[in-house]
């Protein structure tokens, strides 16, 4: 690696285009152009200097902005493809995705499914795209920020004439008409918050160098953000679960290591009322039919007391009472419980009267808790009822046998054995809603339906996301960096004495219009002519 010694004496790293100190062009061919390419101060970027080993090639590939932009554009198009049809997570679960896409969207849906676009954002190739953007961010930034930092740090006040001449804003003024010490100009520069450095009567005024780091700061933020996204795949960092709790029920909250329990006191669904709510809404409510106003679960959070013995029912200690509403989750220990679903009026209990068919005389009443039915109900006076089988969600299977679809009491059915003084061996009866079957011939006794009770059920999402901090910190740094780069400008003005002339050059990383206006105000009344925009002359 040979270093390049400039005629001004400064030693530059191999690959430098413009001397870090005086700004003279170190590469002959590049000096031919009228204006210097000031983008990275002509510093020695690794990607522009080495291209031999495989590592060089990979480095150069990812450090290219062209590649970066292509990655962005391809990701953009891929993302758009995923919005043509709903993603798998948003389709109803009534049938398999393969069937659903074909059923709803025909051949196009089938193709969409076969291409894997129904799960596009978690497909391997989409993740590869995002990862490539991440790699590109890291390499691009390192490739530029290090030499740029060196160059800006080493720059000296007196720049080489060829450097000044090849700035976009450049002008020469005859020195005879000018105040020798630039006092007025310096005052104006200070008024515009420039930092002034002087050397041999030449001036370098600079401000907002800070904004040059904006892009690299925001890239750092994005990298932290992407790391947060990767951490999601680490077990335990991200929990996405669901708990359904009936009113009056206390349940263990999943994923809390058996530590936390939740009691659901009441679920409330409110809708807007044309009469009672804001009158301004009445027309909108009329047009929409029904508008939901509130979904709310009133809950109590419990924590298991430490000395609970395993196997026994846990001893619980109340932690807090809370009303979970949409937009107001219950938070504890990094967990959050969200009101996301509900089920109104689920059957909770059924009552029956035991009657003798001949006179319809009630002989006793039983109320069956459909979620925890008892084995046997004693009705007194020698009457009792046994539950031989219970089907909470009853249906007949293909062989005509009764079975239950789920444990949710949507359609309860029972096989009762009625024990009475005159039938001590019991009579058997199959009872479902609006249906009674007596499999062993006519019974003398009957279980007569007497009523139901219902309860609402709250569906709460259980969420823990330990990666959120990465996203928060990454997002904040990104926003900071973007603002830093976007809302400040790095401006430099060089004023150099050259024999009987004053040379003025100006450079900014953006907003040339603003710099021109500012230079105009700074030089106003000093006798120095405003530098010309050499790009506009062309």
């Amino acid at each position, binding site marked *: 690696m040979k270093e390049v010694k400039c005629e001004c004496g400064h030693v530059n790293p191999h690959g430098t285009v413009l001397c870090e100190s005086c700004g003279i062009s170190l590469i002959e061919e590049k000096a031919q152009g009228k204006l210097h390419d000031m983008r990275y101060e002509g510093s020695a970027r690794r990607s522009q200097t080495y291209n031999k080993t495989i590592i060089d090639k990979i480095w150069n590939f990812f450090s290219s902005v062209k590649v970066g932009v292509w990655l962005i554009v391809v990701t953009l198009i891929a*993302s758009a493809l995923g919005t043509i049809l709903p993603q798998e*997570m948003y389709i109803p679960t009534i049938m398999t995705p393969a069937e659903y896409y074909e059923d709803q969207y025909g051949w196009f849906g089938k193709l969409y499914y076969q291409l894997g676009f129904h799960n596009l954002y978690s497909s391997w190739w989409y993740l590869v795209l995002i990862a490539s953007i991440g790699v590109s961010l890291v390499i691009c930034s390192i490739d530029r920020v290090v030499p740029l930092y060196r160059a800006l740090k080493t720059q000296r006040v007196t720049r080489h004439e060829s450097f000044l001449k090849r700035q976009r804003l450049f002008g020469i003024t005859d020195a005879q008409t000018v105040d020798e010490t630039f006092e007025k100009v310096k005052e104006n520069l200070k008024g515009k918050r420039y930092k002034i450095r002087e050397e041999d009567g030449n001036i370098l005024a600079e401000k907002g160098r800070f904004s040059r780091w904006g892009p690299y700061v925001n890239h750092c933020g994005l990298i932290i953000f992407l790391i947060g996204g990767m951490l999601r795949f680490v077990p335990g960092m991200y929990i996405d679960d669901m708990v359904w709790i009936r009113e009056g029920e206390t349940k263990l909250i999943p994923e809390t290591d058996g530590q936390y329990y939740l009691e659901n006191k009441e679920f409330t669904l409110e809708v807007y009322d044309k009469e009672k*709510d*804001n009158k301004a*809404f009445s027309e909108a409510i009329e047009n929409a039919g029904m508008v939901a106003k509130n979904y709310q679960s009133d809950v109590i959070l419990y924590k298991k007391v430490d000395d609970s013995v395993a196997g026994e029912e846990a001893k619980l200690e109340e932690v807090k009472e809370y009303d979970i509403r949409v*937009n107001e989750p219950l938070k504890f220990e990094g967990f*959050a419980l*969200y009101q996301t679903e509900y089920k109104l009026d689920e059957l909770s209990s059924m009552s029956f009267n035991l009657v003798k068919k001949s006179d319809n005389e009630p002989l006793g009443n039983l109320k069956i808790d459909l979620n925890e039915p008892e084995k046997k109900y004693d009705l007194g006076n020698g009457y009792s009822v046994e539950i031989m089988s219970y089907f909470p969600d009853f249906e007949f299977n293909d062989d005509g046998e009764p079975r239950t679809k789920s444990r949710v009491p949507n359609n309860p059915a029972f096989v009762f054995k009625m024990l009475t003084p005159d039938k001590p061996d019991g009579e058997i009866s199959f009872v479902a809603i609006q249906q009674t079957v007596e499999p062993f011939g006519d019974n003398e006794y009957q279980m007569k339906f007497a009523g139901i009770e219902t309860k609402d059920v709250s569906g709460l999402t259980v969420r823990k*996301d330990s990666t959120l901090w990465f996203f928060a910190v990454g997002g904040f740094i990104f926003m900071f960096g973007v603002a830093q780069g*976007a809302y400040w400008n790095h401006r430099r003005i060089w004023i150099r004495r050259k024999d009987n002339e004053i040379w003025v050059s100006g450079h900014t990383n953006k907003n040339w219009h603003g710099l021109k206006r500012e230079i105009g105000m700074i030089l106003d009344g000093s006798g120095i002519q405003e530098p010309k925009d050499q790009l506009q002359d062309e």
Partner: protein
Amino acid sequence: MANLSSNLLLVAFILYLVAIPFFGGAIRQKKGLEEKKSFEKWAKIGITITIIGFLSQLGFFITRWIVGGHAPLSNMFEYTAFFGMCLVLAFILIYFLYKTSVLGLFVLPIALLVIAYASMFPRDISPLIPALQSYWLQIHVSTVALGEAILAVSFGSGLIYLVKAIDQSKRSKSTTWLEVIMYSFVAIIGFVVITSGFALSDYKATYNYIDKNDAAATLEYSMPALVGPHEWELVNKGDFEPLVEVPAIINAKKLNTVIWSLGAGLVLYILIRLIIRKRIGALLQPLTKNINLDLVDEISYRSVLIGFPVFTLGGLVFAMIWAQIAWTRFWGWDPKEVWALITWLFYAAFLHLRLAKGWHGEKSAWLAVIGFAIIMFNLIAVNLVLAGLHSYAGS
């Protein structure tokens, strides 16, 4: 008060309309110093009227907020009207920064179109569903609107650049695409004219049809049905019979409206071309005579530079925070979220191309046009067609 609110919006609309010719007067060829002063006077009147219009629209916004008890940012009409207001605000700020009257001549008509478009949606003050009941509603939505409005100014000045820079003496790809932009504006006018026309004549036709779940349903059209729903049947005999029938997954009523609007736009466009006997781009070109290309290029770029962080903050950062609170996760690949990401990626690419690849001038102006097209797609197509979780924004 609800009436006062709508009247204030109407007043704002009219004032913006009145301001446009003043900006037109301000850009006529400057000859002597004397005349220059008089043109400055024109511009001053124009900007004053614009500011009064803006205040009036602000009054609309505030009174509607008071009446409804929540920030009027909760449906298509409210959001789009607010977006129009932000666009005017962004214009006013940029005007004082750069003193360019011609920008008013382009941005104000865009704002007018946006507000007129907004008014075609149901304007009832509607109650908030539980997911929207949060102070993040005003924070998230207003920041997004402001960001998008600033980005739209970039489109406005990019458009001025193109109108001036594109050679109208012969037909080229550029002139054709410029006419496509002009046609899109005319099509929005077509949409407004057609919708208001049929609304005034109180046109209604009801159809029974079979929806995508194979269930019987009815659909009321407010325009004659060129496109009828799946297995349609007239409810009242004698109503207009649809010419074509579409499968159940396509929303026939919306498609019908789109066809009517594009058709009306086409008729209008052809009429304009027949009357002026040249491209609309060529008609507008003289208005940009005195504008400095470098300056509009710079305005376009700086608007992106200012708007991009604002959009990121509103459309991604605030959006994610609220989504974490309301929907349990900060990101869920909902179509609206994805299109916000697409917008963000696009402007990120724009900035990289400009900063590192030196895409200035015409290239950069075309990029500003594409960026605005993406924003409009997100506002119109994603809300009305792709729907998803943001579907309440569709009515």
